[in-house]
């Protein structure tokens, strides 16, 4: 199957796509965008989070064929700004595997809420697992980015 979609503002095409493979696989293995991470392939960890038509989703749970004609924005497509800077400044990155998904989720949260409360932050990040930081530094980073 040939897949056409817009990724990070560019029209992209992938050939010989198996329709049941995930959008995550297409991004990483076919389009050379390894920023979105694959840690669980079952929607549990959020490290594959991307925007699909403006909504954050787990790209491992989107069938390649469902992305036809849609607009995808990955972590590579986000301008480097307050979210990424805050993650660095707060020490919210250790191994970094969870970071791309968190950056997309936080980017979305701050686009929706200027000054999110702590419960808002926890709720917004409930679908992103981190095995290194214990989350405190991640919360610090979100508070910092929201300032």
């Amino acid at each position, binding site marked *: 199957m040939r897949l056409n979609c817009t990724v990070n503002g560019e029209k992209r095409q992938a050939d010989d796509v198996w329709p049941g493979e995930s959008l995550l696989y297409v991004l990483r293995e076919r389009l050379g965008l390894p920023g979105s991470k694959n840690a669980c392939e079952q*929607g549990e960890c959020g490290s594959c989070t991307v925007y699909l038509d403006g909504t*954050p989703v*787990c790209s*491992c749970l*989107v069938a390649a*064929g469902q992305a*036809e004609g849609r607009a995808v924005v990955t972590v590579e497509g986000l301008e480097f700004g307050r979210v990424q800077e805050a993650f660095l400044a707060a020490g919210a990155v250790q191994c970094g595997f969870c970071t791309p998904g968190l950056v997309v989720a936080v980017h979305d949260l701050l686009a929706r809420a200027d000054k999110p409360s702590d419960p808002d932050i926890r709720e*917004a990040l409930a679908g992103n697992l981190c095995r290194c930081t214990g989350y405190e530094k991640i919360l610090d980073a979100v508070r910092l980015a929201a300032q």
Partner: protein
Amino acid sequence: MDFLRPSTWEEALAAKAAHPEAVPIAGGTDVMVELNFDRRRPPALLDLTRVAALTEWGGDGDLLRVGAGVPYRRIIEELGGRLPGLAMAARTVGSPQIRNRGTVGGNLGSASPAGDAHPPLLAAGAEIELASVRGVRRVPVDEFFTGPKRSVLAPDELIAAFWMRPARTGDQFAKIGTRNAMVIAVCSFALTLDRERRTVGTGIGSAAPTPVRAPAAEAFLAASLDWDSPGAVPPAVAAEFGRLVAAAAAPIDDVRGTAAYRRHALSVLARRTLTWAWEGSR
């Protein structure tokens, strides 16, 4: 594997009739896990995300018709006031990413005894609209589930929508799990108290081979509540209601909990939700 991509409801029904073995995919939050882990290799996927009609909801008389493809996020944001019990359940589903994609139609399609949308649909006496090229039928939700992950859905049918009466205020849902987000229910319970019609509805999740109602508990409570009274529910009534709800379940021991724990937890959830719903509906 074929990938069928209907863009209208008529095309979707025609595709399902021509390819009854095709697996529908909406939010993909159940289907993709099975594909990713090689648990399923269907000959075809039938993508429903381009069928705009599935993502619409609207009123028809005193009933709401909600398209099977409305994701949990929109149930919460757009229908939280009209269907508060279902919205409460929707808030407990997975994570924001899952709620952005996952749908009630997909929950029904999977027909898991643990599906969180099922108890509120049962408590509200919802009807499920099923359609095929042969026609449309409406099935009461308590007749929809036939076994674990099995339903009355025929191979050529699709779930079009569900029909529900908007609640006033007496809706509650509660779920037991190891954390607030991202848990499959150990057990769950939904309650609807309708003061005007003096009726009680219940739904039990994750404590029987299918989601079930507790009819004896409903009848007992409807007869025992002093509907005109502004006072609290008598503790003896609440306790008996809890006992009858637990008795309606047929739980098993599994990795998430024991049968005995589930029964006990259900009686507690029933009592608590009764107190909240009664106060909320005053």
